[in-house]
């Protein structure tokens, strides 16, 4: 399946993917509105980790073939859809955070309403290429099929 991959050689650490991700999932059509018009700033599902020696790496859900988060989910809120995308059903999530503990990549986070927030490859919004991929200024984030390599 096509996944989001990051090439740290080109990741600048500008964190714009986070902004684009948060905006894309905010439901707003205007970025300024999304960030400045509400008490709660939208939260990104991708996180740029800034390391020493100017290493930057944007981390987002790997959509594992056998995802531990899904295994650990106590309510069945996390599922794998037909395309292999790991999805969250907010209405069923109770915010127990078991999935966060299980995730070996540290890709998961919690939203304003205490339920799980995770990358769903923008299937719910823009469609096509994930927003972080489309808007990365240095082509550091790509959306490719690499034969199951995570």
């Amino acid at each position, binding site marked *: 399946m096509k996944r989001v991959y990051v090439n740290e*050689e080109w990741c600048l650490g500008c964190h714009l993917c986070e902004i684009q991700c948060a905006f894309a999932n905010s439901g707003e059509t205007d970025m300024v509105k999304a960030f*400045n018009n509400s008490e709660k700033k939208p939260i990104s599902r991708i996180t740029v980790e800034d390391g020493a020696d100017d290493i930057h790496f944007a981390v987002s859900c790997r959509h594992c073939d056998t995802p531990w988060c899904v295994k650990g989910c106590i309510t069945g809120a996390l599922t794998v859809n037909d395309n292999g995308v790991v999805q969250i059903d907010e209405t069923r999530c109770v915010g127990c955070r078991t999935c966060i503990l299980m995730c070996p990549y540290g890709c998961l986070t919690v939203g304003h309403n205490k339920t799980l927030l995770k990358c769903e490859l923008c299937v719910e919004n823009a469609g096509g290429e994930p927003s972080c991929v489309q808007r990365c200024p240095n082509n550091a984030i790509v959306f490719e099929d690499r034969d199951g390599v995570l």
Partner: protein
Amino acid sequence: MSINFIYPEYEVVRNEKRCIKCRACERQCANEVHSYDQEFDCMEAQESQCVDCQRCVTLCPTNALKIVKTNNRYRENANWQQQTMEEIFRQADTGGVLLSSMGTPKDYPNYFDKILINASQVTNPPIDPLREPMESKVFLGKKLNKLEFDENDELLSEIPPQIELEMPIMFSAMSYGSISENAHKSLARAATELGICYNTGEGGLNQDLYQYGANTIVQVASGRFGVHRDYLNAGAAIEIKMGQGAKPGIGGHLPGKKIQEKVSRTRMIPVGVDAISPAPHHDIYSIEDLRQLIFSLKEATNYKKPVIVKIAAVHNVAAIASGIARSGADIISIDGFRGGTGAAPTRIRDNVGIPIELALAAVDQRLRDEKIRNDVSIVVGGSIRNSADVVKAIALGADAVYIGTAALLALGCHLCRTCHTGKCNWGIATQREDLVKRLNPDIGSRRLVNLVSAWNHEIMEMMGGMGINSIEALKGNRLMLRGIGMSAKELEIFGIAHAGE
């Protein structure tokens, strides 16, 4: 500490309503202009550091930023303008020679803008390049004045080495060190894809780029950085750099802080040591010495590589070119005084040399008058800004052009003219790793390919309009040009008539 006389040149205008405080501007500014104030939850700007490179402006996701030139004015007058006064303040402060980057910003006449191109009407049909063949391939190098065949019609003459270009445009010399590895990679890959050449500049050739050798011109300059046998044999041609348009008569100085590990290895000099190119080649004090270097290089490469001699456009450029043509060079490249540079003394850049248009017209005519135009090809650079400039240069007599600044612009350069600081936010004129990685050669080479292909399309359109279907029929075809607003003397030098004539 004394008073700082100089008011910040630019103002950062931030639309607070649009700013979402994502801090991308802060992270992207190597000059540390932007910062976030936790207490007031807002972005601040240290405007004195701003060089107007536009990096923050282009990356701001909400278009909340713009940089404007300050309207704070000294009490200037026509003679003593703000810039002039500021330079005095700066020198009074530091006691140093003023340094600048890129081509002169001064308002000298640009003759390309005073030349108009012809088109066919009625007596001769224009040609549509989308429907008819249209050719832009050129060969650079010495042409034989006579082809000898034996009785079986087999060619006896030995053909001098040539460079074959799919279009008459090359990327001009910019050294590894003055620009980044990723900039070089972008140029090399684009040149390969386009079937043209890029030029290593005087900093040697990075090992990783030997694979692009067929589309590389390797340069030998007065510092001889990175010159060895494999290097000389690696490219399609060798260029001896005698001068540079932005700083004729001046050598080069790459500060030690730009000489990191990889640059050091490529240049064959220690890490952190200033790389100084002397003003002259110390083995070339006259034309006969140049001949020796040309033939040394030919010996070293088994007479397989054409040798280019690059000179700055100076007052007696025609005579110098004539001398070079008679010294065994295959190609002469002339760099006009509007040409770019990584760093040059401001006074030299703004006052020494002549525009490339005049130099080209003079050299081409002189070589024809002396009947030696066939002995060399002419490549010109120094502010070729668009495809019309290319067409005009070729009609004036050039075989091809070099583009440097235009190529850098394609890579992201916004002409902030502070290359000499080494803090290029676009990852071009810097060796700082965090900045270099900002230029992804996948993107850079694609943008260069786009640019040059676009120009080539436009060149073909203009040629088609003139009823010309191959670039060689445009070369030196000055009848296709007319001057506008030029004096009789200027027209005479260009060998063209005035519009309306």
